[in-house]
């Protein structure tokens, strides 16, 4: 009972899933429907061939059992051996027809599957990109990769191999039964004798195979996961001299996988062989029953031979339909997972984004509370104001909430209480793209994309030509090292910028921001130490970067802190002190201690 109910629920759900797939196939419905029309044509061409064999045998080769109608006699006499050639020509035409319709149908379905799934993948990518940061905090990237590759491949399988050909297989089966029945009902019923045992057999194997295939998937996944983990953690395995145990564990997983794989082979071989054997037995039945009818001149020899061929053609679709059913099942599971991903809500966008009238670049935090996880507040009642053109530095110990301020300002997350205003407008009422365009972000760990330097500075804005990028690089003090590279601006950047030093990456990220020219600059200064020469370059670049902008900087450099108009001191999620460098030092409070920690006693530092 329980199972029945579950299945029923699942079926309703399947319909919505199929609708979703169809919504992606729909744009390609013309080739899709053409393929649908070509399929029965293909069946027609294929099934006409045994009929031609029958005609040839009955008309020309063995006319004595079923003489042709009298009106045909003169024609046949006149034709003689040419009749055979005519039959041959017809046969070739049918063959070519089968060829063409198959190819057309195959290519069109592949095309539909390829294009529609590519659209689905792109749509999914677009959707995921726009999900809030909180989603990425809890979802490993690897999982998203497999959604957009493996799972979509499974659906693609259904679109190109599954749904359409199942339909075609059904047509073929019906057509064969109808043809056989019109030829001779008695013989047809005898020939179809093999179907019940075949169906039983297919069902028997299918039910078992489905379980085995699920086991295979799970066991292979476990095996490969173990392998990947062991390879990544080989150092630990060796340090703990665990080689032998690991081999044993691996062997066990390997053994389990092999067990299922072998069982699957036994079932598959069983299904394959029993279908083959049944088809031979059907031939024997046709020969026995049909032979008697030929002898009694109830049917022609040609009909008998055609029956044998039709019976052969009957078995393949029957066997394949069960295979495709499995494909269908696994693609539904994949679709279910993708549907869940599509149902993730992106960050709410204002229905009508506020018009920004004042564009001078001011920042206001009003009593902002925030927590990444409920019960663990990260910011508590933070209020701050940055006037247009002001440079404000934030300092504080690790974990005091500095980075969170930046993340809230660029609306990676939404505040739990209070509000954040940029140019006098709540960030939640800004058009998100416009907000992020207004704020330039320079992060501590510079992320470079695989590609070339030019692309990494332009970041997709085609309006920036080479000379604009050069200017940005020059102002960021990065042009010199870029020009020393063999390929200059076109120098390749490896994944994550692995072929550049930390200092070079920093300068490039400055160039990015300079090319971007935002009115507000938000920066998380890198803590990683660079050599003194690069340090000098960074200082120069920083000056360039800050001129004429409102800036909020999580500062680590002494020079940055000292040159700030105001310094905010954070501790445990609250704003503790605020003022200029000199004022704060004079207070001898938290800032004084922090400063001492970072740069030694203030008296010596100055």
């Amino acid at each position, binding site marked *: 009972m329980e199972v029945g109910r579950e299945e029923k629920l699942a079926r309703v759900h399947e319909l919505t899933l199929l609708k979703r797939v169809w919504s992606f196939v729909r744009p390609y419905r013309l080739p899709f429907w053409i393929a649908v029309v070509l399929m029965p044509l293909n069946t027609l061409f294929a099934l006409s061939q045994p009929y031609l064999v029958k005609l040839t045998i009955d008309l020309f080769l063995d006319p004595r059992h079923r003489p042709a109608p009298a009106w045909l006699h003169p024609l046949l006499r006149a034709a003689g051996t040419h009749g055979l050639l005519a039959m*041959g020509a017809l046969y070739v035409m049918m063959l070519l027809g089968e060829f063409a319709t198959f190819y057309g149908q195959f290519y069109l379905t592949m095309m539909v599957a390829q294009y529609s799934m590519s659209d689905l993948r792109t749509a999914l990518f677009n959707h995921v990109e726009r999900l809030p940061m909180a989603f990425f905090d809890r979802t490993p990237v690897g999982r998203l990769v497999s959604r957009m590759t493996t799972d979509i491949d499974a659906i693609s399988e259904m679109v190109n191999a599954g749904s359409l050909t199942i339909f075609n297989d059904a047509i073929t089966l019906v057509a064969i039964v109808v043809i056989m029945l019109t030829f001779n009902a008695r013989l047809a019923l005898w020939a179809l004798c093999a179907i019940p045992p075949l169906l039983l057999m297919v069902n028997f194997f299918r039910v078992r195979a489905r379980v085995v295939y699920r086991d295979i998937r799970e066991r292979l996944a476990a095996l*490969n996961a173990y392998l990947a983990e062991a390879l990544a953690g080989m150092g630990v395995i060796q340090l703990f001299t665990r080689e032998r145990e690991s081999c044993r564990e691996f062997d066990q997983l390997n053994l389990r996988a092999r067990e299922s794989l072998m069982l699957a082979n036994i079932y598959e071989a069983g299904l394959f062989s029993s279908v083959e054997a049944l088809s031979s037995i059907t031939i024997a039945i046709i020969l026995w029953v049909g032979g008697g009818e030929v002898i009694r001149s109830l049917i022609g020899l040609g009909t008998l031979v055609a029956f044998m061929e039709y019976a052969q053609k009957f078995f393949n679709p029957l066997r394949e339909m069960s295979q495709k059913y499995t494909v269908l099942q696994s693609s539904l599971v994949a679709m279910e997972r993708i549907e869940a991903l599509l149902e993730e809500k992106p960050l709410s966008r204002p229905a009508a984004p506020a018009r920004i009238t004042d564009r001078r670049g001011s920042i206001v935090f009003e009593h902002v509370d925030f927590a990444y996880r409920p019960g663990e507040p990260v910011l508590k009642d933070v209020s701050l104001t940055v006037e247009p053109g002001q440079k404000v530095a934030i300092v504080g110990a690790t974990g005091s909430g500095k980075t969170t301020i930046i993340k809230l300002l660029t609306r990676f997350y939404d505040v739990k209480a209070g509000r954040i205003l940029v140019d006098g407008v709540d960030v939640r009422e800004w058009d998100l793209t416009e907000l992020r365009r207004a704020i330039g972000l320079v992060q501590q760990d510079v992320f470079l994309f695989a590609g070339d330097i030019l692309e990494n500075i332009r970041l997709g804005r085609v309006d920036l030509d080479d000379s604009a990028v050069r200017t940005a690089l020059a102002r960021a003090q990065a042009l010199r090292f870029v020009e020393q590279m063999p390929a200059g601006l076109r120098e390749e950047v490896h994944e994550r910028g692995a072929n550049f030093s930390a200092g070079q990456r920093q300068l490039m990220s400055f160039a990015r921001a300079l090319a971007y020219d935002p009115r507000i600059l938000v920066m998380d200064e890198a803590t990683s130490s660079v050599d003194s020469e690069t340090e000098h370059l960074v200082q120069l670049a920083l000056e360039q970067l800050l001129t004429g902008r409102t800036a909020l900087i999580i500062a680590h450099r002494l020079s940055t802190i000292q040159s700030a108009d105001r310094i905010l001191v954070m501790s445990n999620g609250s704003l503790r002190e605020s003022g200029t460098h000199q004022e704060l030092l004079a207070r001898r409070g938290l800032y004084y201690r922090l400063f001492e920690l970072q740069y030694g006693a203030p008296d010596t530092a100055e």
Partner: protein
Amino acid sequence: MRRLLSYIGRFWHRYAFGIFCTLATAALGMTIPYLVRDAINAIQAHDYLRLAFMVKLICGAAVLGGVARWFSRFVIFNCGRDIEYNLRNDLFAHLVKLGPEFYERLKTGDLMSRLVNDLTAVRMMIGMGVLSFTTTPLMWVLSLSVMLSLSPRLTLASIAPYLVLFFVMYHLSRSIMERSLRVQEGIGAIGAKIQESLSGIHIVKAYTLEQHQAAQFRALNDSYNEQGLALARIRGVLLPLIRGAAAASTMIVLIYGGALVMAHRISIGDLVAFMSYLVALAWPTTSLGWTISLYQRGKAAMKRLAEIFETTSTTMIEEDGPLRLEVAGEVRWEDVSFSYFANRNGSSNGAAPAYALRGINVTVRPGEKLAIVGRTGAGKSTMVKLLTRMIEPTTGRVTIDGRDIRELPLGGLRRTVGVVPQEPLLFSDTLARNIAFGRTDASRDEIIEAAHVAGLDSDIAMMPRGLETVVGERGMSLSGGQKQRVTIARLLAYNPSIVVLDDALSSVDTETERAVLESLGQSVRGRTTIVVSHRASTVRDADEIIVLDQGTIAERGTHEELMARRGIYAGLFHRQLLEEELTQY
């Protein structure tokens, strides 16, 4: 290839049985058309008795053939699975012996794809390949001999399409494989792009690159579409080609054979037999063409796997090493220098600092505690890695109880020196099994005690299934500090004579670090201990503290001596105290 043959050799009796069944299948399969011919001839002669006899024979051949086919397929395919299983185990057993230099050279992803894809290619070769190479020739011999005896001329005329089929298949399957490879690369590139974009999602969002990234993604998808359709274009030919060849020869039989029947040179039964033979030969012939490319691909894959087998490591663990060595626990670095580039051709950037360690001379007496402090990159980890021979000194030597560790059995050495590495790497398994990682026979009490000493009690109490909670990638994710404490528990369960903590508590706060170190100190009392830390305040009780700076020992002495010097250590210590103060502010 020779390696593969030795694997095949192990299953020769099963292969022999499988091949026998295959041959029986082919032979029985090939008699059916002949029996059909006789049956039709009997029908034409109105001979009921003979027809009945033939029908019974066909049924017999079908049943026997079915059984033989069943055995042949699964016996041979399962031999393939067995060989794959053995190869995979042997590969893994070899991989665990290879040192860090191998894993630096080959990334996990590359290795995984070798192990997965190449093994599949090899298995296909020895499963499908063997079946096809034995069946197809026999089927051809049998059917040709029957057809030739019926009518040599008709035989020659009707097999012509098959010769074409075979050669076209052979070439087609090669380009199909090439194009499928390209399709695989295409989806690989898509996966890599997703990985990159979503790993850098913060920069994508900050610079509103969503559309830009989507456009790049779209472009990759477009070229993937092209690759997919290029494959479809030739794969679409495949099935019509096979059916076409069969149908073309049927047509030849029908016209030419029909003429022969009308001329009373052959019977209709012969004609039908011809048609059946030709239909039966279609798939085997196709698969033979396919198998030849399978063989080529499998051979290349096997070569790549052989490369792994042939890689040896300088520090391979011996098969049956002794358990833990009995040592007093004196550890000494004698004039040790180390360069990561010494064993490689050419350094990475020309003028890179050649030595990670230079002229290190340190002795730790049995049961004493050595602390190594210094900035990131000063060479602290390098020093302790030398102790377990994860790397070998470029010059100088490391000794335990006066014996060069290169002369000690490696397994014994690593059971004697226990390390808590910097990176707290756990496995996707239960907490208990992660703690008992190095000693699978550890008792429940030992595990609980180890967890207790590592300060995990309250964490475990919070976990849904306590010690049986699965952690890691497919389980509960632990915080950095929790992971580090589990690695400490793992070390305690391992129970080594010499304990090395490589900045093992960097992710826990100073207070917890001090508490864990204290209880740890009690439970490893009397054992030689080497502690690497970036926090000066937690190592003040060490018997000797060395301060590394750019690969050399800058300062050494006890806490008091170093504080009195007012050098690097004193500075570090002072900042440490301040930092602690600030967190309590």
